[in-house]
């Protein structure tokens, strides 16, 4: 490929090898850069503080310690209270599980109706719902804050579950609908002739064949809701905050000598659930990402 001064015969051989070297070299280089933040985070979270200030950010810890992780979990200061991030971690866990289950279930049912029980205007309704996936959420913050206050669920996990379900169903509906569109109508029709009803068709025919799309939807919703910051920051205070908001407070409240190792450990704890989901379900995560973006 590249022009070389060697004899044609040799050039062919070497240039082939060289292009492979360049390709692998570039890929390796980018892979290192992409991994750097994670590596720095992990390494720093296992170092003692003096070593961090004295040493080099990508050096291996000379003296490994899990103390920062324990501190982050139990004694790190979030604002004025210093009870660690464990409470916030469980806030996020509760919020995420509930919101994921509810929004996924609603999405599957919606997708089923929109494809197998089509009625006039179904596509328009779908289009209307679809747009909801892409609005900048700043546009709903003020009304939502007011409403949650009036309903008495402001600053509570219930409130956040509600918000995440409300703004999650457009995605779950989108996924389920696009999946069920390809599901053979004949099976549904046959079941109808056999006298099966709306829910039993869903339960006996659609649901057992929905494995992949359920995984895609659950992973997508889990990642989005666990990682959310805007809603958490807008609709929660103090003890009711989700993990991301607490983490942001931990990182910004320390005064004096900043315990960077504890910050990094807290960040790792906040990242672990979605990172694990990504490692074990990466394939489905990518599918969700693509389904949510390329094809409306």
């Amino acid at each position, binding site marked *: *490929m590249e022009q070389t001064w060697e004899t044609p015969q040799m050039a062919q051989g070497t240039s082939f090898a060289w292009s492979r070297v360049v*390709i692998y070299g*570039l*890929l390796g280089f*980018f*892979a290192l850069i*992409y991994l750097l933040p994670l590596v*720095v*985070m992990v390494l720093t979270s296992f170092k003692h503080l003096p070593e961090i200030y004295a040493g080099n*950010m*990508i050096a291996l810890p000379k003296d490994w310690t899990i103390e920062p992780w324990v501190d982050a979990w139990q004694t790190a200061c979030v604002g004025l209270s210093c009870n660690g991030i464990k409470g916030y971690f469980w806030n996020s866990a509760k919020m995420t599980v509930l919101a994921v289950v509810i929004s996924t279930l*609603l999405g599957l049912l*919606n997708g*089923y*109706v929109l494809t*197998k*029980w*089509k*009625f006039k205007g179904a*596509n328009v309704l779908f*289009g*209307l*719902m*679809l*747009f909801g996936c*892409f609005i*900048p*959420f*700043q*546009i*709903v*913050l*003020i009304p939502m804050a*007011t409403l949650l206050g009036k309903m008495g669920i402001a600053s509570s996990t219930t409130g956040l579950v509600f918000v995440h379900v*409300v703004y999650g169903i457009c995605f779950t509906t989108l996924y389920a609908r696009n999946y069920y*569109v390809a599901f053979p109508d004949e099976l549904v029709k046959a079941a*109808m*002739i056999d006298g099966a009803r*709306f*829910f039993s068709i869903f339960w006996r025919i659609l649901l057992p064949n929905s494995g992949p799309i359920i995984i895609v939807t659950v992973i997508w919703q889990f990642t989005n809701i*666990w*990682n959310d*910051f*805007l809603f958490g*920051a*807008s609709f929660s205070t103090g003890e009711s905050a989700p993990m*991301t908001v607490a*983490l942001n407070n931990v990182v910004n409240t320390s005064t004096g000598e900043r315990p*960077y190792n504890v910050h990094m450990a807290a960040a790792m704890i906040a*990242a672990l659930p*979605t*990172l694990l*989901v*990504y*490692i074990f379900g990466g394939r489905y*995560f990518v599918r969700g*990402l693509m389904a949510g*973006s390329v*094809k*409306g």
Partner: protein
Amino acid sequence: MATTYAEPLGQHAAPHVSTRLQRLLPKLVLAPSVAITLVFVYGFILWTTYLSFTKSRGYAVHELVGWLQYERVWAQPRWSVALHNLAIFGILYIVICLFLGLLLAILLDQRIRQEGTLRAIFLYPMAISFIVTGTAWKWMLNPGLGLEKLAHDWGYTNFHFDWIVNEDMAIYTLVIAGVWQATGFVMAMFLAGLRGIDQDIIKAASIDGARMLRIYWRIIIPQLRPVFLSALVILAHLAIKSYDLVVALTGGGPGYATDLPSTFMYAHTFTRNQLGMGAASAVMMLLTVAAIMVPFLYSEVRHSRATGRD
């Protein structure tokens, strides 16, 4: 195509109350979600739009003041900074993501060993909250601790990298971190596009003696046009919505040097008691996103119907 199953198929079903219920059931099941969308998406959009025309400050009031809140927003130097930043950030973010994403996709498409591992490495930033990875970036960009110190330790004592605390340069740190987060996603889109290209055309061209670079430039990349468009739209709307990134990395600072419309909106609504201005800026954000997304979604839905996927 649009077969209607809402009509009862089984003629033998007795005209019974439960039959009517069965016929209504699909709509009843969909109804809550439609209602939720109408109220919490469209209703709230109207509500915020309404607020943007009122005199609201610390709390909502109903006195209408026309375009006053919009004029006040535009009169703020902070808003000009936010828009200016959005332009810089948005353009660089989109261009660099497209370029790097395409480059990585092409490199990965060369029968690479460990392709799966590499893909996973390029994509993991999308799976983690920016509040998390921002902590790491902030640290790496910190002149006293991060990359600058690393370079000094290695003997490059002239190396200066203090962009994050430099008013004029801080916005570029957002670009770096934003690109780092989103390239993997663009790469995945391009990779899917590349895998969808007919290999025979490429084979034919290479038999004709065309060089690989030329084949990419002349044949393959032009075929990826739809992917470019999708990626462009997605990146543009992500750029406008960027919020976590700023909060985690710079908090909008130094001063308000790295404000974006999203942080402007948040600050005015929740900390500066300017509901009306917050609402006005949110409406302008929505309009910008809608201008990008509505035509795109419309053409996607139409296209899917035209090609019979519906």
